[in-house]
């Protein structure tokens, strides 16, 4: 009856709201993109690899990162675009490692495709580097058991789901997402915890992710 037993450590839902900070840095070709990716802050790399998740969450289950989108749509380098889009972000535990992978992918491509250096974005189509500033704050929603947890997940903002699944794991460098961590350590339900942590959240829309988590937890509650 783990779903109804009050746990020692309740789950406090946080939300993450963000502002986009402009850097004034821009790139017109692939070499400039590469050199700027190397020098900008991790907050910038994080912005361009995660922005689509929140802004276009209802549209595409595979949100492209901004680098992939620009390389394909503006420079017309579909092959590199595909390589950048298919970087398995969930495998990286830090933004630094993710950045290294992006850099290596571009450098590798440039080695074999020198002519791409001659391609420039048209006026107004340059890549503009933006930083993501996160504001993390506790909400008034607290779950003391699995039933309360799933009821809150049904109604909480996607910003909150985003925070606990994506931001806390990658940007705050926790090993797993917050939901899995709480379900395992406070509820003692390793099975549901594993099911959630095995999801590749980057291949779901945030609403799909919400539905999937609800399904996993409700199934557990029914089985008890």
């Amino acid at each position, binding site marked *: 009856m783990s779903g109804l037993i009050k746990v020692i450590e309740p789950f406090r839902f946080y939300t993450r709201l963000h502002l986009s900070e402009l850097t004034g840095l821009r790139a017109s070709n692939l070499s400039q993109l590469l050199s700027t990716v190397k020098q900008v802050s991790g907050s910038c790399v994080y912005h361009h690899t995660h922005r689509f998740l929140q802004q276009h969450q*209802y*549209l595409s289950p595979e949100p492209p990162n901004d680098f992939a989108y620009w390389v394909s749509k503006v420079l017309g380098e579909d092959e590199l675009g595909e390589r950048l889009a298919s970087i398995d972000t969930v495998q990286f535990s830090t933004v630094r490692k993710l950045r290294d992978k992006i850099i290596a992918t571009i450098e590798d491509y440039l080695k074999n495709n020198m002519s791409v250096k001659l391609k420039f974005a048209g006026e107004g189509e340059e890549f503009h580097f933006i930083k993501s500033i996160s504001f*993390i704050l506790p909400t008034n929603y607290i779950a003391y058991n699995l039933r309360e947890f799933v009821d809150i997940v049904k109604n909480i*903002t996607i910003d909150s789901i985003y925070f606990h699944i994506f931001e806390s794991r990658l940007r705050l460098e926790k090993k797993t997402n917050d939901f899995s961590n709480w379900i395992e350590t406070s509820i003692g339900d390793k099975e549901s915890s594993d099911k959630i942590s095995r999801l590749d959240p980057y291949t779901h829309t945030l609403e799909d992710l919400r539905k999937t988590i609800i399904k996993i937890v409700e199934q557990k509650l029914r089985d008890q």
Partner: protein
Amino acid sequence: MTNIEEYIPIVGQPIIDDLKLLAEKLKGKVIQHINSTVVGGGVAEILSRMVPLLRELEVDTRWDAIRGGEHFFEVTKKFHNALHGRSEEITQRDFDIFLETSQKNIDALDIHGDIIFVHDPQPIALIKKKASNKWIWRCHIDVSNPNQQVWKFLKNFITSYDSAVFSAPSFSQRLPIRQFLISPSIDPLSDKNRELPQETIDSVLRKYNIKKDKPIITQISRFDRLKDPVGVIEAYKQVKKYIDCQLILAGGSAADDPESAQVLEEVKTRSGHDKDMHILLLPQDDIVVNALQRASDVIVQKSLKEGFGLTVAEALWKAKPVVASNVGGIPLQIKHKYSGLLCHSIDGASFAIKQFLTNPEYAEKLGQNGREHIRNNFLITRHIREYMLLFLSLYHKEDVVYL
């Protein structure tokens, strides 16, 4: 006056809860907006909706306007055009007029906010009054390619602010202060955007003698060359060869724009005797605009240059399929083939309109996607949230802020 709770059915309770959480963090701070007019223009329109909502959230928000005479506003209009990249002859006398009026405002205006939020170039020199409070400069203009003489003059003031805010990434400049990207927004409960009963829509169509017997293509905008109304007519003519349809070009007059009457005449001449073209010079009536947008099958915004282009957000909010130019803030609102169709030419526009008219399910899908995109990104609730985060950012320099 709209109540904040009225937005709950549109954006959901948790979004409003978030606004309340943020508002609590601003307790005790006085926010003072300053712009050039309290009536007329986009800035006044948004502040008139936003200030009461912030107050309802218990954020102590004030709003003042500077004073300026005819000469001052002639100069600032020149600045405005020059910042948009138009060639303008700007003399030392113009700068002197600007500085003289600015000094009068510096002397006269009571600056009492903890956070002073200055909108656009007209009041920019008030920064000379900066003390221990925080100052934000909000630029509503497309400064992607500004006249350097004017930009350098303004930059002397901008660099004394704590932060600047722009509407699109391409407007950002290399500045020694923090700059944020905050898009403008539409208010889903305003007369221009709220749901309308079918009778109201029908009565507006009757008033302008428009029958709903064939598909309606509409562009709502001032009669301004930058909105390319003649290009819209050409695109319509190309579509008309294959699909029997009608065109509405509707917009208000602009007393301060001597070109508008000339452009309207050109448009009327181009329309010839085609009874399916409705060229409407509208009075300021948001319900009429709302009704025309809702009666349309495809909405076009074929601008050659655009600060942000909120008519696109208005159309998408009504779940309309939109064909729009890939300029200014429009690509932030439309992702090509997901939430509308972007174009770069008259031929591209006519092809996209035909695609929508011959594939109504596709058109409906993109319109629905567009509505959700606007719900998530371009409503006034998002705008209020980002302004509150902006205020909080003045007291936190880090990239991850725990509140």
